[in-house]
């Protein structure tokens, strides 16, 4: 659907903070919306070092 990632601003900020690429996260929310929990899960499951954010 339009290639857009659906996630609340707080989840998007968390993804930046943890260096998670939202496009690669499976959302568990309605319609595939990505929750903060999904971002944490993706960050833990990711063996690579988080990217620097600033």
């Amino acid at each position: 659907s339009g290639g857009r990632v659906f996630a609340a601003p707080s989840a998007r900020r968390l993804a930046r903070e943890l260096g998670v690429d939202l496009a690669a996260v499976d959302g568990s929310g309605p319609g595939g919306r990505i929750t903060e929990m999904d971002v944490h899960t993706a960050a833990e499951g990711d063996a690579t070092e988080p990217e620097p954010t600033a």
Partner: protein
Amino acid sequence: MVVGDIATGTDVLVIGAGPGGYVAAIRAAQLDLDVTLVEKDAYGGTCLNHGCIPSKALVSATDVAHEAREAEHMGVHADPAIDMAGMVGWKDEVVDQLTTGVERLCKGNGINLVEGTAEFADENTARVAHGGEGQGSESIEFEHAIVATGSRPIELPSLPFDGDRILSSRHALALDSVPDELLVVGAGYIGMELATVFAKAGSDVRVVEALDQALPMYEADVTRVVTQRAKSLGVDFHFEEAAADWEARDEGLTVVTEGEDGTVSEYDATKALVAVGREPVTDTVALDAAGVETDDDGFVPTDDRARTNVDHVFAVGDVAGEPMLAHQGMKAGEVAAEVIAGEPAALDQQAIPAAVFTDPEIGTVGLTEREAEEAGFEPVVGELPLRASGRALTHDDTDGFVRIVADEADGFVLGAQIVSPDASELIAEVGLAIEMGATLEDLVATVHTHPTLSEAVMEAAANAMGQAIHTLNR
């Protein structure tokens, strides 16, 4: 004030104290950075002094008069008279309160305020020339700079501003009497807001626009409501005509226009207001000394961290390009400050709302149906006409509609186009819905107060799901 040439150092130099600059400065100071804010003119920039605030003050004040004048059928008999000098005086008080407030907030946050014009000397130094003779100048060394120099009205070579007969929006917001006949060149949002203000204040208003509709950035059915209302206020539209020349005449002027087909027309007016767009202000600041690039239109390109091509120099607000709106500048100011402070901030908003404070207002956020299609969605659209809203009826204001655009497949809310009283307020909810990834169902399930216009947002969403109560679903 500092006299003579002394050198100071700062973590963050902010150039320009409009909405982009003062918000950046305050946010940076909150994040414990040492901040210097330079402003050459007045705190609050265009927005507080010559833009958003004064225009909305006049919109509100003329609206009070207009509503009272039109309320006989509601049992209210009034014959309001407008004293433009009094109205502008009140507007100036509003502006004063807010600009004083901005200055106080800056001081309260410990920002170093410098009055003068800042020009880059090199990548890490700016010179500030203090206004007035013998005021001297100072050198400021910075770790990071935020350019927030804003924009100014575009001048037409054929109709150059003189502040007397040919006005910019800034002049128009400071008139001390209502012009008998006002010719507005340009039917963008500034032209349309001021055309409405002066029509309500009693001017005979004529609008000349080169394109074929008012507010050309909006969909035709959105614009139609506002154009119709403006016509009923006596505004006379001339589309597909461009201002070509002018001539002084008694106390006023004659403006010559040229149509698409070469037809020449002449319009007499007391004053002409030219509102054909705004251009970035970069000629005050010597960007090239810092190595900062501009694009072909003179704007400073930035990335999603509000960063220019020079890593430690940021640009926010109108100088950074579209959308040239105060809230975009403020958000970019916050992001620039947070990025400098090392926070994981970004300009990653899904939707920047925009409002036009005409009668009725227009409020839009996110995608139109067409834009949603172009973005690869399969949009579903829901609408509630305002005449089906109880609150709109009690406001005696039923021209308009609320339209919600969503993705058919998963119901995600993608956008809204609202034409209604307080549309500027109503879009806030849809903006949040878009940012949250809310679905139509989420909007419909949320209980909305009765009777309000916000119910129309819920009902438009319900209509998109085939579940609206107060309109038959299609």
